[in-house]
């Protein structure tokens, strides 16, 4: 028997799963909120001492300096271990109710108000089939990936996104076009549709779409939207090759997509977004920071660690790339976007010329 939902969040199959994952959440909060600031302070001081002002040490030199701090290795061990524990238990908990989840997602397909569109012949590109963040099967290969991703990210957000609070904030603050006309909205790489639904609630009259490469996530996105009676459409598609006409959308939102795809794909996605947007339309981007030069040594170390050891294979090239230049060259005017609760992210409003 499913233990049902806590508002928008599914309950785990067993109380023991919830307790275990609550522990992982508390542990993560401690590692992120207490250990990391300590590491930042000690680590930046150590690197600063070994590299005089004016010289910019490379990542290998930063790592060599940081290696002397026992805290660094302990922190790396704890980050990797708690993340593995989180996925192992989340996957096991959802799998204990696999039949019910699969049936619920299958049944929802026939229900509206919105639609779920996919082509059985769609081929997922290899670059997208990695176990990002260590999630078993990644986004694309586990039929239970939707609910697994949802509960897993609930732990990742340290419980602060149980009712989609962060997605609601981003949708609420997204910059609308100056002329105010919002007829069609797109959530680019929408995962389980948390921002897609929030966008529809902000612009109830707009036709709203979420696209993603990962069908398991979209099936769950559609189930969640159908349960709530929200009229949004989901489609399995590639951001670099979208099934939409030119000048179609007034507003496009993307939340942490670009650091998760190879830069060569980003170079195709940005012009493709420009193609499907009308002049004056706004592209609201919440993303990893760029320009590693301006990051502290420990922040550079963190991104590198996350890339190597938390399976974010493409984030390093994104952080070092000229993303703003690509946006400008593809036909956008680039301006700072609204500040959001997650201060690590950069926020951009790119307006289609």
């Amino acid at each position, binding site marked *: 028997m499913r233990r049902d939902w806590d508002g928008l969040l599914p309950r785990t199959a067993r109380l023991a799963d919830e307790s275990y994952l609550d*522990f992982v959440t508390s542990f993560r909060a401690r590692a992120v909120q207490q250990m990391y600031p300590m590491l930042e302070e000690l680590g930046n001081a150590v690197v600063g001492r070994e590299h005089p002002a004016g010289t910019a040490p490379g990542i290998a030199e930063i790592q060599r300096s940081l290696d002397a701090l026992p805290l660094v*290795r302990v922190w790396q061990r704890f980050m990797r271990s708690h993340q593995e524990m989180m996925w192992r238990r989340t996957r096991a908990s959802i799998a204990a109710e696999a039949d019910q989840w699969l049936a619920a997602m299958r049944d929802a397909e026939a229900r509206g108000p919105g639609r779920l569109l996919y082509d059985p012949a769609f081929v997922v590109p290899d*670059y997208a089939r*990695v176990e990002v963040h260590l999630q078993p099967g990644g986004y694309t290969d586990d039929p239970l990936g939707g609910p697994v991703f949802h509960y897993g990210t609930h732990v990742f957000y340290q419980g602060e996104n149980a009712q989609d609070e962060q997605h609601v904030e981003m949708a609420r603050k997204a910059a609308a076009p100056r002329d105010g006309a919002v007829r069609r909205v797109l959530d680019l790489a929408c995962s389980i549709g948390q921002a897609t639904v929030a966008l529809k609630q902000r612009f109830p009259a707009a036709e709203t779409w979420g696209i993603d490469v990962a069908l398991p996530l979209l099936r769950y996105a559609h189930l969640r939207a159908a349960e709530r009676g929200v009229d949004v459409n989901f489609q399995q598609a590639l951001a670099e090759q979208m099934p939409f006409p030119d000048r179609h959308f007034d507003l496009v939102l993307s939340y942490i997509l670009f650091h998760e795809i190879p830069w060569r794909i980003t170079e195709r996605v940005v012009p493709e977004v420009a193609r499907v947007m009308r002049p004056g339309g706004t592209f609201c981007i919440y993303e990893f920071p760029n320009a590693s030069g301006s990051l502290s040594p420990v922040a550079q170390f963190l991104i590198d660690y996350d890339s190597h050891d938390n399976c974010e294979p493409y984030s390093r090239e994104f952080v070092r790339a000229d993303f703003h230049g690509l946006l400008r060259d593809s036909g956008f005017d680039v301006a700072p976007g609204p500040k959001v609760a997650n201060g690590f992210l950069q926020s951009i409003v790119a307006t289609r010329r």
Partner: protein
Amino acid sequence: MKQAQAPLGAEIEGPGRRYFDDVVIDNLLEAMLELTAAVWTHRDRAMVLEQVLSRLLAESHGAPDIARLLEQHRPTAEEQEARRLERDALVSQVFRSFARRPAADSAPLGAGRRYQEPRPRAEQAS
């Protein structure tokens, strides 16, 4: 279109990573995490259990002394066997790291030392 299938969870079920020159330190820290998770899980359950029981028994027994009832409890053989199985599972969970990385060279070192690109799942299947 059928695509190549590698087993799910190569990242979390493989040897994982090692950060210390002595892998036993990695294993110990991981075991500590599992142990604390297990302690919390059981403590949490005991707290829920006591709540549920006292709410249930409040009507028939007034305010029952749950702690005393627990001390007086005599398990059956069947129950003892079930508890043994649970206990063995706890031991495996806490100490899985040592079996996962039994030797010094049994896992790649962490970031910045000896790094291997993750392989796309399609390649892993072949």
